[in-house]
């Protein structure tokens, strides 16, 4: 098993005729993801990388039975595209687009809730269930099928960590980049719960960063609800307050959202916290050895 995506994922790529959309559609396809449709208003009837293009998500779903969507639409139009997917019956939307105005994400949240649509991102690298399906822009060659689930707010840091795991022969069930924006779809808690319920996941790596209190909440949730071992790493221990470290959400304001608070919270919840990414495989091995 795995969570959220697997062999049955049928993907529609919104913004497939854009530079990024086309490129990654092809990458996903070659990994084995079932990319069944693309959407680009006005381009219905054409194909991109062998994938049929539709004017609307509604048409794409009708014609192909797509159940998952990935968004490569530019920031100014992305929230509307997400809402479109949700209203067309798509139950999982992965929003790669960076720079969507926060109020737009807030405004579509109730629409997603009403339709029962889950969202990953925005401003995220996507997710992968190695050997089954990849949706997003992840460098597939570093992943390895296995029994560790990974949730991360960042992109390349995740790759660094996955690379460490794979190099140490620790495979992954599903790896998810949840995105670096302040307001995002599925967060640690929902995903931790999914991993807890996934019988092919035996341990969880959580890669957090400064800003907000999602890590603290995740720590509390782990304490109460998660029985599988969790290893965490927090980026931004050296980040100064008041500065946005690249990610819109990575910001220490008025002394809250610091790495040390988060590390403390995790340690209090019995989570093993790595000092540097290279420590993660070792901590996982220790967890399994126990």
């Amino acid at each position: 098993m795995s969570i959220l995506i697997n062999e049955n994922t049928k993907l529609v790529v919104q913004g497939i005729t854009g530079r990024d959309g086309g490129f990654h559609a092809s990458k996903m396809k070659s990994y084995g993801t079932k990319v069944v449709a693309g959407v680009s208003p006005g381009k219905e009837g054409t194909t991109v990388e062998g994938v049929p293009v539709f004017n609307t998500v509604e048409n794409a779903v009708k014609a192909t039975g797509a159940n998952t969507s990935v968004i490569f639409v530019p920031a100014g139009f992305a929230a509307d595209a997400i809402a479109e997917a949700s209203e067309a019956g798509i139950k999982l939307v992965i929003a790669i687009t960076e720079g969507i105005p926060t109020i737009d994400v807030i405004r579509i949240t109730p629409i997603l809730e009403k339709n029962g649509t889950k969202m990953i991102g925005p401003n995220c690298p996507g997710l992968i269930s190695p050997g089954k399906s990849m949706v997003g822009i992840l460098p597939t060659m570093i992943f390895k099928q296995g029994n560790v689930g990974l949730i991360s707010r960042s992109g390349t840091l995740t790759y660094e960590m996955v690379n460490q795991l794979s190099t140490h022969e620790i495979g992954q069930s599903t790896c998810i980049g949840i995105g670096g924006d302040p307001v995002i779809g599925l967060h640690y808690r929902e995903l931790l719960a999914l991993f807890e319920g996934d019988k092919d996941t035996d341990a969880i790596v959580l890669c957090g960063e400064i800003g907000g209190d999602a890590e603290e909440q995740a720590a509390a949730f782990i304490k109460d609800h998660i029985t599988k071992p969790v290893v965490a790493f927090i980026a931004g221990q050296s980040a100064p307050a008041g500065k946005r470290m690249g990610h819109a959400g990575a910001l220490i304001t008025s002394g809250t959202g610091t790495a040390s608070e988060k590390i403390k919270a995790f340690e209090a919840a019995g989570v093993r916290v790595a000092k540097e990414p290279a420590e993660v495989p070792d901590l996982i091995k220790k967890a399994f050895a126990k």
Partner: protein
Amino acid sequence: MKIHEYQAKEIFAAYQIPVQEQVVCTTVEQVGKAYDSMNHPVVVKAQVLVGGRGKAGGIKYCTSKEKAVDAAKNILGMDIKGLTVETVLVCKAVDIANEYYVGLINDRNTKSVLLMVSAEGGVEIEEVAKTHPEKILKIAIDPLVGLQPHQARNVFFKFMKDGNQVRQAADILVKLYKLYVEKDCSLAEINPLVIDNQNNVIALDAKVNFDDNALFRHPEYDAMADYTEDEKLEVDAKEKGLSYIKLDGNIGCMVNGAGLAMATMDMIKLYGGEPANFLDIGGSSNPKKVVHAMEYLVNDKKVKAVLINIFGGITRCDDVARGLLEAFSQMKVTIPIVIRLSGTNAEQGRGLLANNKELITADSMGEAARKVIEAAKKVK
């Protein structure tokens, strides 16, 4: 993006939120004239984009022209948390009967605009949030319905008794929410919202931040920007597709991805060094970005050594290598550079750079961090 109090109050006024008469001044003479025009006690307030102006002596209540001029002399040119005061705002003083805190923010947890109201007005709300969180009333506003007048009234009835005051305060709040959404704010605060001795409800201070992600649809905000030198660098870098923040250390970094960039800084610090910057060259493989990034590092005179940490995913290591070669051909780089390439096309990248004997290579983040700290120590 932050704007000054006087700019925020201009927006307030456009939304019919009552603010005191105000004059923006950059000279002592202007402050004198402003006092004359008001002929009433005034408050002279430093306009700097940082909190804690009051504690720093940047806000003065003046009952005469002489006092106002004196205050202006003191405040103009004053340093507040590293920022020089170049502008002051002269406002008609108010006899305050009561003060409150009112704020709106984009809230991560409720995925909504969160309304916060507290009777602890006029003090730093972050302090209240830490010491007495129960004194802040928080309400998540339904993004589709918006803030309804009766909700605003219900909130203020928990703090005020007088119906007239509540109606005024609720009306201000409904307008503030409208402004917040229409102007794409990430924060809008009135601290304090006051009731004067004639029962008028007034926004005595105003703090508005715009959502950086939404700046593209508000070109009019450009004219409102007042950046420090460091912030100008950040904005300039952003236009080049880079995310760059200057810090105080001496080890420059160039990384792809925000999380990895932070982790790289952390590693430098963990191993005893001091990062000179945060620098994320982003997810694309444009060699030009590498050239621009190199420029920032070389132009920072504090930088003694550079660590380049690339984990190729979308970013291809050979592209980064090409960018570096181009940078070396365009500028004189005398400081030591430690480079770690991993992931997509790492082999090719290393191959391209093999002839460049000055480059110090590393296989892991840890090794790279140790090597760059060592290298920096050797530089005089």
